[in-house]
């Protein structure tokens, strides 16, 4: 019996272990301290359920190195109701915000009613109060919703704890895997495994599909995979190289690159009619398209000036404009969610780093300090960038928050991880 129990634990914990795990390298410049008080529970529930929920919220909030926590052992009190909450207990510990709450069992089916409150200790006011009903089987999901609300209240930015990441893993045995996981690395799913390279994953705006490039048939082909059914469809673009697919904001078309006869240009592909229409026509390399949030423009890389630089094209007037001039390598640009700035890979003295630039200014700001950084992707709230980089011969993911300049990494246990793609927010 004891042995059986042990095996059971191993099976369960195997599922919990994730391939990617975020490690904070450097916290934000001005870390706020938050106390996550274990939630109280009513009769019929375990004390550990309340502790677990507070822990889950805490690990979400600490995920990107933007906050620090007050250790449970240092807490002077464990209030769960507003009337038992005293600001001085937290002020004395240097706490900026406190989260308290209570879990009430609603019925025997495992439905829970969870109330939570957020206090701003410095201003001595209650800043957020909420209630949520959910199943005890979905305690992770409940914790994410509460974390999002707390994060929004404290930072003024949309919470991103229920977003996902797509990425490609290249294991040592030369196997390529298209994977997705929760943004904290949990619940990893392998969508597709191949002996040939996989590239350029991109989420559909409804988060139901992923487009990517696979070499499984000997050349670069674009596939769309449905996440629910697992079904894969190849886009019959029929060029010698078909690459860099990106979904339009309305999900009805893809911008992609087709090289019919050795000249890669940007095309629009309509999902409904399965037809291609040409966007750029230049003998230079045109590639790496990405849509502006209002879908009126597409940014792309072209070496028409002699080195890779960023351009944008108006999708209706087809007017083009050069966006970067400083440096000999500016490529794979993406717009910020507000459409006012771009981020991209900037080559400088043999180093390739992630950089940003306001569209209204010429000034390029470098964000990273390693030398082989690429494939940056931004959180839907515009505050966190995850990118691929390399240490030794292993590829791993690095991250940076733009507000607080915290840094973190997402190492992978086996093989190399590359080409992160951040999912959109869930459609409400």
């Amino acid at each position, binding site marked *: 019996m004891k042995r059986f129990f042990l095996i059971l634990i191993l099976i369960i914990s195997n599922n919990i272990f994730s391939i990617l795990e975020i490690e904070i390298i450097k916290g934000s410049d001005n870390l706020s301290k938050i106390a996550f008080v274990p939630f109280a529970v009513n009769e019929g529930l375990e004390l550990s359920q309340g502790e677990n929920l507070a822990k889950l919220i805490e690990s979400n909030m600490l995920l990107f190195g933007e906050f620090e926590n007050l250790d449970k052992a240092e807490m002077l009190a464990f209030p769960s109701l507003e009337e038992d909450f005293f600001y001085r207990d937290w002020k004395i510990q240097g706490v900026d915000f406190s989260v308290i709450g209570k879990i009430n069992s609603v019925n025997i089916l495992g439905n829970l009613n969870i109330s939570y409150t957020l206090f701003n200790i410095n201003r001595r006011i209650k800043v957020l109060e909420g209630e949520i009903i959910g199943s005890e089987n979905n305690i992770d999901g409940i914790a994410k919703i509460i974390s999002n609300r707390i994060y929004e209240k404290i930072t003024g930015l949309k919470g991103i704890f229920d977003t996902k990441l797509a990425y490609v893993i290249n294991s040592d045995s030369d196997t390529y895997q298209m994977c997705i996981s929760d943004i904290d690395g949990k619940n990893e799913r392998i969508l597709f495994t191949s002996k040939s390279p996989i590239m350029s994953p991109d989420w559909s705006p409804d988060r139901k599909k992923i487009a990517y490039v696979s*070499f499984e048939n*000997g050349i670069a082909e674009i596939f769309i995979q449905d996440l629910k059914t697992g079904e894969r469809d190849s886009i019959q673009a029929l060029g*010698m190289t078909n690459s860099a697919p990106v979904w339009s904001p309305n999900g009805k078309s893809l911008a992609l690159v087709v*090289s019919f006869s*050795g000249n890669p240009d940007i095309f629009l592909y309509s999902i409904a009619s399965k037809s291609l229409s040409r966007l750029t026509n230049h003998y230079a*390399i045109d*590639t790496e398209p990405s849509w502006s949030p209002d879908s009126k423009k597409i940014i792309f*890389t072209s070496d028409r000036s002699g080195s*890779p630089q960023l351009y944008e094209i108006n999708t209706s007037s087809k007017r083009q404009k050069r966006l970067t001039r400083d440096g000999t390598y500016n490529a794979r640009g993406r717009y910020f969610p507000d459409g006012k700035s771009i981020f991209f890979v900037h080559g400088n003295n043999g180093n390739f780093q992630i950089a940003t630039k306001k569209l209204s200014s010429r000034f390029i700001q470098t964000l990273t300090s390693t030398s082989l950084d*690429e494939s940056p992707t931004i959180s839907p709230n515009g505050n966190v960038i995850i990118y691929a980089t390399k240490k030794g011969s292993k590829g791993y993911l690095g991250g940076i928050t733009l507000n607080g300049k915290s840094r973190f990494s997402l190492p992978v246990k086996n093989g190399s991880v590359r080409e992160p793609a951040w999912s959109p927010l869930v459609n409400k």
Partner: protein
Amino acid sequence: MEPIGIFILAMLCQVYSCAANVSDSVEQMSYASVAGEEYLQGDAVEVGLDDKVYFDFDKASLDAEDKMLLEQYLPFIKKAKVVRLEGHCDERGTREYNLALGERRALEVRDFLIVKGIKGKKIRVVSFGEEKPIKNSSNEMSWAENRRVEISLY
């Protein structure tokens, strides 16, 4: 053939290959496509020559040494059914741009072969960008080895 004849032939081939770059559909079938890669099922022909030509960073031009190697290939290529040119890049810079760059390197080799009288129809061009490096370490020596076009005959 008179030297002038060879010259005219070479010029014609140049014009021919330029024309292919202008029109998208005319030459389409002579390039790699999903349907056209069945020859990969068979074994590549061993010719005992170095099967790679190398390039400078972000460049796709052939130097004298590369051209000499390709010249040695010509008799074997003439006998082969298919010549597959696989373009590759080093890891620096972005992946999708490198995919395009690898293609351009392979095309540079293709154009040289066409000028030398090889039929465009039997040349298959494919790029793997930076996805299939020979050396995985990040230094100038590995990068130089990874920036290549691999030639295989079927």
